Each structure stands twice: as structure tokens, then as C-alpha cells.
């Protein structure tokens, strides 16, 4: 495999990891706020905080890893995205900063502050929306090179149906992924009240997930026919995604195998995300950068791959330990530890 393919695959895997763990976190913020509003905080919110408290920093590192890796493997991406995204990027950082710190302030500091909880819930939906525009922009048509400047065409973005369909998809997916995970978690905790509440959320958000994906396909066809056609060539990826979705919804509906249902949701997004990514290639940012033209020099590329492998050897056992202690330890989940 060539260096650029290795690089983009590594980055895509980590972005996928972030997609899953961050969705759980973002959606949980929304549900926590909702639970508070409905006066269900004692079941729902205690449950959510048991899962999130030990892992939220790890979630953030997934994101840091992605953008540091992107700049490392494809330095030209730093130049184009960096110049063009100054304002939208900064707004996304500020939202992330508010969310992360307010989580800590609210959770470890002053427990019952409704303002923290509101901001925490609201940013949970705004952040995926703003981060997803980076993917939208990569489809081309929203940046223009003027002399030595790269200009971001905000008006085009705000009036593009494609862009809005991606925003809708991102929000709906976040809520769906989060609800299915928390249903599983509540079930393990033996907290039937929360489980039923969350199961209802999962079912409620499951049809919109598929509708929103269809919407994205339709508008992509208008916006970037080239990408649409490559996606059709690997239609089976999206087919598998649909099958996993149906399986997951079935299990949740029948109140069975919540763990398996969540794994199916993960696979649903895995196939869709990698199908999307594979058909997007060779462009990182259409039409300015492709993976071949922007990849770093071979020496640095090799060094990054070596460090990546060494890093994984360190990371996988540590992550396993974390999951064993906080996810698979029934006593912890139940609140006995």
C-alpha cells in the first residue's frame, strides 16, 4: 500500500473512532438536559455521568489525534483548511472549549447548575453540526483561491441544500448513536426506568437517521456528481450499512440483545463512513488537494507510521483496561463501586 493510502486510512479510522465516542458524549449531553427538564434526572443523569466522567478526556484526544495526524500526513491540508476556516474553525473550538470545561465544572464542581447543563446540552448538537461542515467543504465549491488567499464562500455554504442535509444527518446520527449506546448501558446497569426511556429515544431517532442519509445522497448527486457516481460503484457498502441498521432497530424494538444492537449500529456507521470516505478519494479538498499531491515526504511518512504502530501497542491495552474497569465491570456500571 502506498504511503498516502496508509495515512488516510489511519486518519479515517481515528475519525471514525471519534465519530462513535463523541456522538455518545454529545447525545448524552442532550439527554441529560432533557432528563433534567422532565424531572428524570435521578435515573438518567446519574447513569450518564457514571459512564462519561472517566472517559470524556479520552474522547477529546481522538479529535486532537485526527487533526494533528492530518497536518502531519498531509501538510498542505493545514494550509488550505487553515486559511479558509479561520472563523468557522474558531467558533467550533470555542464551542468545544465551553463544552469540555463546563462538563468538568458541572460534574465535579457545582452539581446542580442548570446553566452549565443547558450549555452542555446545546453544544452537544451545535458541535457536530459545525464539525460536519468541514466534510461538506471538502466536496468542493465552497472555497476559492484569490491570488495568494484562500477565501471561504460562506454564503454558498449557507444556501446549499447539500450542506444542510449533512447538518441534519450529523445531528440525527449523534442522537441515534448515543441513545442506542445508553440503552445498552442502562440495561447493564439494571436501570429499567432509564432503559425504557432511552429505548424510546432510540426508536424515535431511528427512521430519521435513514431518511437523512437518503437526503444526503440525493443532494450529493446535485452537488458533486463525481462523488455520487463513485459511491454508487461501491453501493454494497451502503447496503451493508442498511442491513446493520435494520438489525439494530429490530433488536431494540424487541428488547433483546442491546449489546449486539449497539455493535450493529457501530457497523452501520462503519460501512457508511468508509463507503463515503473511499468514494471521496483521491480528494482531500476538492479540487485543491488530493492525497497524492499533498502527502508529506517519505521519510516523515515512514516515521509517522512507525510511531503510529508503536503508539497503538501502547494504546490498545490501555483502552482495554479502561473499558474493562468502567464499561464491562457490571458492579461499576450498577453503581456498586
Amino acid at each position, binding site marked *: 500500500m502506498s504511503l498516502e493510502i496508509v495515512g488516510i486510512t489511519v486518519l479515517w479510522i481515528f475519525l471514525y473512532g471519534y465519530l462513535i465516542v463523541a456522538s455518545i458524549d454529545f447525545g448524552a449531553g442532550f439527554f441529560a438536559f432533557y432528563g433534567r427538564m422532565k424531572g428524570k434526572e435521578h435515573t438518567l443523569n446519574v447513569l450518564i455521568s457514571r459512564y462519561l*466522567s*472517566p*472517559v470524556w*478526556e*479520552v474522547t*477529546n*484526544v481522538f*479529535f*486532537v*489525534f485526527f*487533526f*494533528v*495526524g492530518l*497536518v*502531519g*500526513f498531509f*501538510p*498542505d491540508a*493545514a*494550509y*488550505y483548511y*487553515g*486559511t*479558509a*476556516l*479561520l*472563523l468557522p474553525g*474558531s*467558533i467550533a*473550538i*470555542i464551542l*468545544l*472549549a465551553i463544552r*469540555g*470545561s463546563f*462538563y*468538568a*465544572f458541572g460534574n*465535579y*464542581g*457545582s452539581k446542580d447548575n442548570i446553566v452549565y447543563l443547558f450549555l452542555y446540552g446545546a453544544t452537544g448538537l451545535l458541535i457536530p453540526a459545525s464539525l460536519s461542515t468541514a466534510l461538506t467543504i471538502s466536496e468542493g465549491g465552497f472555497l476559492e483561491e484569490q491570488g*495568494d*488567499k484562500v477565501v471561504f464562500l460562506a454564503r454558498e455554504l449557507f444556501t446549499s441544500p447539500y450542506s444542510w442535509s449533512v447538518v441534519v444527518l450529523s445531528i440525527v446520527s449523534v442522537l441515534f448513536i448515543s441513545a442506542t449506546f445508553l440503552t445498552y448501558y442502562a440495561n447493564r446497569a439494571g436501570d429499567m426506568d432509564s432503559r425504557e426511556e432511552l429505548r424510546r429515544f432510540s426508536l424515535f431517532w431511528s427512521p430519521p437517521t435513514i431518511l437523512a442519509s437518503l437526503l444526503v445522497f440525493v443532494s450529493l448527486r446535485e452537488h458533486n456528481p463525481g462523488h455520487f457516481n463513485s459511491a454508487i460503484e461501491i453501493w454494497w457498502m451502503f447496503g451493508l450499512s442498511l442491513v446493520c441498521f435494520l438489525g439494530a432497530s429490530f433488536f431494540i424494538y424487541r428488547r433483546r440483545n442491546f449489546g449486539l444492537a449497539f455493535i450493529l449500529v457501530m457497523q452501520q456507521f462503519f460501512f457508511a463512513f468508509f463507503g463515503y470516505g473511499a468514494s471521496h478519494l483521491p480528494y482531500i479538498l476538492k479540487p485543491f488537494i488530493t492525497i497524492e499531491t499533498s502527502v*508529506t*515526504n517519505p*521519510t*516523515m511518512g515512514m*516515521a*509517522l507510521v512507525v*510511531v*503510529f504502530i508503536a*503508539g497503538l501497542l*501502547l*494504546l490498545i491495552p*490501555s483502552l482495554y*483496561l*479502561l473499558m474493562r*474497569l*468502567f464499561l464491562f465491570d457490571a458492579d461499576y456500571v450498577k453503581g456498586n*463501586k
Partner: protein
Amino acid sequence: MVLDSVILSRMLTSTTLAFHIIFATIGVGVPVMISIAEFMGIKRNDPHYLLLARRWARGFTITVAVGVVTGTAIGLQLSLLWPSFMQVAGQVIALPLFMETFAFFFEAIFLGIYLYTWDRFKNKWIHWLLTIPVMIGSSASALFITTVNAFMNTPQGFELENGKAINIDPIAAMLNPATPTKVFHVLTTAYLTSALILAAITAFAILRKKGGDYHKKALRLTMVSALIFAFGSALAGDLSAKFLAEYQPEKLAAAEWHFESEENADLIVFGTLDENNEVHNEIRLPGFLSFLAGSSFDTEVIGLNEFPEDERPPLWVHYLFDLMVSIGFYSIFIAGAFILFWKWKKRNEWNKGLLWGIVASGPLAMLAIEFGWIYAEVGRQPWILRGYMKVAEAATKADGVGLTFALFVGLYILLGILCVVVLIKMFKNKPAEAELEQRFPKKAS
């Protein structure tokens, strides 16, 4: 001064870093102090130390959060504000940045485990062992990011041809001449500052309500650690000056207002400068600059006049350097005095003056961190990559940096205030004595 995007990018980078470095320093140093306290607690079977470790760790959750989010901000801002720099330097220096993210992962995972497993292991040492990966993770992130900064000061491991980097050697870039002294100084000062901040909080608590054994043990522990780290910091600072004399003489010369190259050069402390660059009102230590630069009075120290005028750093960094060094000596003095009074029974180490001196040492140490970094960064001006790329060539050409700057300043003010408020609330609601009673009911009678 026109507020063009170069100036604004500099202002925003400086603000973010100046804010991040407070929490980063705590993030590097406090895990070490927590680890020492828990170690003592288990070893001596002393609930006071165990409670100390717990309470420090609880406060740490708040500062870590701010450290993480501001770190994420600076990481993204590097690409947003300095895209041309990242495009070129990214080819050479991506390796340590990438390694840093693994260090973050390592720290984040084990910190999460550490904070939520206090009573989970039968063998208490297992919980203590968890502090080791946390310390390794945070100190390693400081190490890797400092190699990046060192690279900007003494770049090597590549050649520049038509604005493109070629013949790249990432390892040589990381192990550039500035790395050893910089890493050593950054780590020792982070440990020192954290010890002094914890000491300052403890001393303040004693002054407020005459703390019991718990506070006394805490102050002794932090003061002994601070003295060790203060000696380490001074040694590392001295080595840094020797490094500068050899590899970056213009930075040292600017800090010392040293214009003509000469042997037996005088060390100028404080003072003022007139428009002809004549020094007045200074304290002059004859020959000491040569000594600082090369451990001998006849070392020749290169003066600023050997550099073209547009490549000289601003001269006000002199004050920052002097203040940093003064604070360094103050730390040695205050920690030394406390330990002396404590060992030498005739004196009372709990006297008010000394305690107030300790209270001051915490904020002062943090100021020294800020002064040190501003000195190191401004002293590199006008270069972003010394000898290769100037700051003005590297800044973004996008519009809207001003607005971004305003937004971030607002964010940092908000985070700063809330962080302090939350911390105060956290400890006010649960005084140490009450918590000791509740957690260790038998022993703490």
C-alpha cells in the same frame, strides 16, 4: 502599530499560549505531587497524606479540563493562524507533535482510571501505580511539545530549497541543540511551580484558621519538594544560558543588554536604557555574564552589535529575564528558610511573615513561567523559524483575525473566572477536617 493580521495572529497566539501554559504547567507538575503524597500515605499508613492526594486530585480534575480545552485550541490555532509555517515546518516537525498525541492518550486514559478507582483495589499500591503512567504521559507531552519549540529556535534536520523542505531527518530535527536544556528547564520549573502553588494554598489555609496536622504535613511536603525542584530549575536555567551563549547569542545578549563582544563581560541586573542604548541605574556584577555563559570569567560573550539591526530581538526582554531569575532565587530562599526554621528548633517555622512569603511564592512562580516563555519567544523575534522564516511571512492572510481574537479573549476570561469560582466552591463546601473525619473515622480522632 497597525493591527494587521500578522500582529493580530501574534496577539492571539500569545494570549492562547499564555493562558494554556498556566494549566499545562499545573498539568505536568501536580501529578508528581499527588503521587508523592499518596506514596507517603501508603508507606506510613497515614490518612493525612492519603487525604492530601485525594483533595489535590479533585482540584486537578478542574484544571485538567481547562488545560485540555485550551490545548485543543492552540493545536488548531497553529494551523489556522500560521498556515504557511505549518505547511513547511510540518514536513519536518510533525513527528513530535504526533508523538505528543499518544502521550495525551496515555495520560487521559490513566487519569480517568486513577480518579475513579480510589477504593477499588484491595492492594493500595496498585492505585498508586496508576500515577506512574499519568506522570509519564504529562511529562512526555511537555517533552515533545518543547522539542517543537526548541526546533523553532535552532532548526536542523532539513534543507530549504525554493521554499520546500528537503533531505529531511525527523530525529535530528527533534534532537536539535536547544532540546536538552529546554526540556530540562521546562520540566523542573513545572514541578517547582506546582509544588509552590500547592504550598501557597496550604500556607494560606494555615494563616486563615491555624491548620492542624493535616496542613502542617502538607506544607512540609511541598516545601521540601519545592527546594529540590528550585535547585533543579536554577541548574537547568544556568545550562540554558550556556546553551544560548553558544547557539543563540542574540537572545542572551538582548536579555543582558550586552552590545559589544567581549571577555570578562559584566552581568547587568535591572537598570534602564536611554535612546543611545546606554545603561543606567543598573546593578553591575563584574565578569558574571562571562561566568554565566561559560563557567569562566574569560569566556567571550557575543554582543548584539554583531547582528544586523533588523534581526535583533526587542530589548525589553531584559526585565523579563531578570524577574524570572529573581523569582528563581526567591523560591530557593523561601523554601530554604522554611526548612531551616523547621529543623533548627529555636525558630518557629509557622510565623506569619514566613507563611505570607510562601503564599506569595505560588503566584510568583507562575509569573516566572510566563516571563520565561515570553522571554524565550520574543527573544527569538523576528524569526518564527530562526534563520529560515520570519514571523511576518508565516501568518495567515485571512480576514477576521481581529474578531477571532476578541472571541477568544472573552472565552479565556470566562474560563479563568469560572475555574477559580468552581475550585473555591469545591473546597469551601468540604473542609479537610470534616472530610478526614468522614473518610477515616477511626484514626482521625
